[in-house]
Structure formats: structure tokens, C-alpha cells
């Protein structure tokens, strides 16, 4: 499994080292971290929740697509679940390829598609005590204590 969900801190350096290959001249990594601000509100912590069987399946599909489209020698992604403090690593993508153009494009593809397609949800905790499920606000009801859909971690 190259796409992993984990409730433990992510060791990004180990993920990158795992991609060593004498064909690979370029390795690009993306690390998403918990930011202290979202949509103008002070954020104090995040929770991630995943629908694991489908998240892993869809994550593996995304990695396969990236390998095929960009001809990379290796691609991995790890995503946290559970409660995260400010500054903690939420997601790590690492890609190795012969040359840098493929590595940059594949890394960007993987994080963009992961954010758009993998069933993982994020609840933000704000300094005023409110919480909110990001992107789940509606006119009829708030997303759980706040209003508006925020954004965090890259």
C-alpha cells in the first residue's frame, strides 16, 4: 500500500528515503501542515476523519494515475486521521522521477486529486470555541457550530 492513513505522526523523511532508486534524479515532496488561520478565523486544532476502505482504494487509484501519466519511478502518500495540533503534518506526498518536471507535476497531481476525491473530512476548532466541518456549511444549517466553509492545511 503506497497510500496510507495513519493516526500517528507522519515521518516524511522516511517516505522520501523509501523512494531511492538510481533511475531517480528528482524527488518532490509536499507536506500539508495545520495552519493557525482559516477564512479569517483563528484555528486552534483540527480533526480528520476518513472512510478508510474507500479512502485507501481511491488514494491508490490516484497514485497509479500519477505513475502512468508522468512516468515516475515511485509515488507515496500518507494522510493523518484523528486530532492534530497547529503545525502538525496532515498529509505528505513524495514522488521520485528521472527528471524534475515529471516529479513536480506528479506531486501536484496527487495532492490536488487527493484533496478533491479521497473521502476524508476535516473539522476545524476555532479560538472562540466553535467547531466546523470544512466545506459542509449550508444556508439551512451551519456545518457544526460555525458558518461558512473554511480551508486549512495547504
Amino acid at each position, binding site marked *: 500500500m503506497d497510500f496510507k492513513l495513519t493516526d500517528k505522526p507522519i515521518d516524511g523523511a522516511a517516505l522520501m528515503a523509501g523512494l531511492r532508486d538510481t533511475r531517480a534524479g528528482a524527488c518532490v515532496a509536499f507536506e500539508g501542515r495545520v495552519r493557525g488561520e482559516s477564512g479569517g478565523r483563528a484555528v486552534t486544532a483540527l480533526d480528520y476523519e476518513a472512510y478508510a476502505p474507500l479512502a485507501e482504494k481511491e488514494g491508490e487509484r490516484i497514485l497509479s494515475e500519477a505513475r502512468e501519466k508522468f512516468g515516475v519511478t515511485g509515488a507515496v502518500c500518507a494522510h493523518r486521521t484523528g486530532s492534530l495540533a497547529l503545525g502538525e503534518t496532515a498529509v505528505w506526498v513524495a514522488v521520485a522521477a528521472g527528471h524534475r518536471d515529471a516529479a513536480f507535476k506528479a506531486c501536484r497531481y496527487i495532492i490536488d486529486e487527493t484533496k478533491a476525491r479521497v473521502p*476524508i473530512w*476535516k473539522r476545524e476548532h476555532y479560538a472562540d470555541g466553535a467547531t466546523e466541518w470544512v466545506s459542509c456549511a449550508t444556508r439551512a444549517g451551519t456545518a457544526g457550530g460555525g458558518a461558512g*466553509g473554511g480551508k486549512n*492545511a495547504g
Partner: protein
Amino acid sequence: MKKNVRVRYFAILREQRGLDEERVATEAATAGELYEELRKRHRFTLPADRLRVAINDDFGSWATAVRDGDALVFLPPVAGG
């Protein structure tokens, strides 16, 4: 004819339903009909056009027929990363 299905809830739906998972006996013909039934019953705030549906651990469509024994998940807008 009633079908017995398993429904799992995540994120905002889990909170609005107040539980992770339930068994539902339903006459809904499609996944879309089942969501409307549950949305009215539990006052879910998200309309179907903001969600996707998964059936037996893979993506499905709202038109997919509901069969006895299916496991369904209604997926709120994702926000990983």
C-alpha cells in the same frame, strides 16, 4: 418489498445522525431515494447534490438500485489535505 441495508455515517452526517452506523429497512428503489428518506427523517442539512454515495465500499451513483444487504455511505464534501 423492504430491503435491509447498512448505512455508515461520517463527519457532519455522523454528528447530525448522532451515531456511526445503523441498519435501515427501506422501500427506497435507489440510493438517491434512500438518502431523501433519511434526510427527511433525520433533518440532514446537506442536499443530495452536495454529496456522493458509496455502495459496498466503492463509489456509486444516486440512480444505483438498492439491494438487500447493501452497505451504503453518503459522503459529505471531502476536505482532506
